[in-house]
């Protein structure tokens, strides 16, 4: 079932929570809505689920306009951040709840509950109460409950944020497996980019009520649509300056070679991912930059070197194992291949 969200706006008092947000998901696709808190991603999810109403804009699911449907008529499975399991019902009753509301008979319900428990690997725990389960198990019950109704769309609100870091990794893989097996169109709301990249086919980056870019993890990381996307994902070295024929000149006057901009914009900056920076003199055809060391942070597996590049732009690069960090104040030569230097518009387009 395809999901199309078009131009949603929503104002809460003085705050504009959504300012023309649009996104789409193809049948069976998993899309993550990623952004900092307050960017409007939860409001978008609640509008799709029917718990909020948009001031303008529309939500279409499989060619059907959802705007006039109440939440219980939308056939959308929703997994809440706090799971929202019914504490007074058993796990099986929780999973069967939606089927009961749909008037399925007892035998059909029992069969479906068993299938769902199998899917989330909780067979045999149907008689337990939610309070008797671990956080990770509760999370999977919430997923099973949402999927039991065979929804046309699955919504996951920060699905793994309530779990501790170790469990999160294991459950990420498990959840991805479940999503692949069921093949339901899914929208995941998250502020965690690793979660978004691990679970989603495409990622929608949101900020200030708008979707700035919608693309695969590779696209949004390597070809960000604007400065916000570039700096929100991973770490970034952002150089200010102006586009010149054949390259870019920083505010300090350093000329750098790079590909021409992919989009016309009033202002561009130059993005270099720190992992593309090499310490040392630039080989033939590479861009040379100078940097000042501001500090070093030992992180066990890696040591991070904090730099001020080209006199103004902060960046952190990983030191090779066994190298001792240069003292603060030292000047370093850095090199970057032109292919790793990307012109990115300062502001999001139209």
């Amino acid at each position, binding site marked *: 079932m395809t999901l199309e969200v078009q131009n949603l706006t929503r104002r809460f008092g003085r705050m504009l929570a959504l300012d023309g947000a649009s996104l789409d998901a193809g049948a069976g696709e998993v899309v993550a809505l990623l952004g900092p808190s307050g960017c409007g991603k939860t409001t978008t999810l609640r509008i799709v689920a029917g718990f909020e*109403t948009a001031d303008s804009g529309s939500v279409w699911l499989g060619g059907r306009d959802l*705007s*006039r449907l*109440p939440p219980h008529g939308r056939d959308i499975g929703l997994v809440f951040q706090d799971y929202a399991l019914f504490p007074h019902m058993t796990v099986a009753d929780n999973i069967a709840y939606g089927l009961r509301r749909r008037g399925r008979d007892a035998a059909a319900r029992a069969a479906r509950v068993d299938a769902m428990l199998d899917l989330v690997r909780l067979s045999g725990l149907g008689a337990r109460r939610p309070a008797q389960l671990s956080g990770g198990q509760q999370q999977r019950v919430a997923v099973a409950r949402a999927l039991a109704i065979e929804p046309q769309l699955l919504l996951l609100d920060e699905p793994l944020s309530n779990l501790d870091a170790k469990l999160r990794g294991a459950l990420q893989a498990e959840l991805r497996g479940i999503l692949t097996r069921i093949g339901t169109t899914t929208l995941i709301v998250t502020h965690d980019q690793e979660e978004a990249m691990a679970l989603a086919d495409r990622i929608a980056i949101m900020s200030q009520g708008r979707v700035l870019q919608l693309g695969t993890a590779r696209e949004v990381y390597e070809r960000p649509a604007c400065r916000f996307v570039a700096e929100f994902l991973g770490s970034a070295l952002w150089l200010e300056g102006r586009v010149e024929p054949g390259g870019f000149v920083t505010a300090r006057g350093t000329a750098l070679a790079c590909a021409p901009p992919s989009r016309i914009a009033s202002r561009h900056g130059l993005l270099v991912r720190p992992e593309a920076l090499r310490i040392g003199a630039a080989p033939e055809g590479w861009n040379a930059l100078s940097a000042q060391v501001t500090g070093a942070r030992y992180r066990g597996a890696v040591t991070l070197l904090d730099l001020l590049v080209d006199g103004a732009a902060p960046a952190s690069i990983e030191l090779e194992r066994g190298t001792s960090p240069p003292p603060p104040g030292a000047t370093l030569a850095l090199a970057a291949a032109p292919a790793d230097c990307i012109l990115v518009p300062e502001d999001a387009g139209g």
Partner: protein
Amino acid sequence: MRRIPVALWLAAPGLLLLLALMGGPVVLLVLESLKPFVPGSIRPGEGVTLGNYTELLAPAYLFYFQETFRFGIIVAGLSVLFGAPLAFAAVRSRSALLRKLLLALLVGLLVMSLIARLYAIEMAWGSLGPLAPLGALTGIAPRSPRYAEVQVAIGLLHFTMPVVALMLVGTFRALPPRLEEAAASLGARRSDVVVSVVLPLAAPGLVSAFLVALAMCISNFVVPLILGRGIVTLATSLMYTRFADIGNYPSGAAIGVVMLVLAFAVVYGLSALARRVLPGARL
């Protein structure tokens, strides 16, 4: 398209009920209080007058209100004074059984018939009762008519104390025990902890318990009716007499309006004042 929220539908029966059974009657009460009284007739006269209110400014009537507040303030004070240790013991006593018994006593009194309790007070503290000698310590002989005042005060105290104590149980439960442990770890003795940590933090709760007790006293009708023996007349009894004994509806209504204003002033006005004096207080 916005649907009417389900919550509004759910609130509607209650709101309609309140509007019909409180809003309407109170408006009628105010209108009634503005009518002139025709002696010897239940039917009020024509026209609008403030006479029923100005009448209440006479010293004889002001005395009733003054008495009402005197009883209220003394009883509310005693209620907090004894209710607070009771509540603290019910929350922080080391014995789980004692905690439970104290809570059971408080909840039990809350649900037990006040009439039965007042009768029991008459039995125990009345001139024939075993506690009469204790009552005599107030300086008023149990056989003198003025002893009714002592009994009314005792009745009001019995009425308010469980409520005050249960409110304070809520207050003390909300105090994080960590703070008391922290104070103790810094070398404070138990009594120091209570004085320097518990009481300041519980102050807003103590104030609101006092105000609720005061409001309960000035609105109470049954205690002076049963224990007052016609000698102690508080504002509520005055209002009832106006209506029942002399059929003066407009004057009764005026007293009712004044009491309404006083009760709300105590509960909302004074607590707003206390909120200003005690910053951070949630009353």
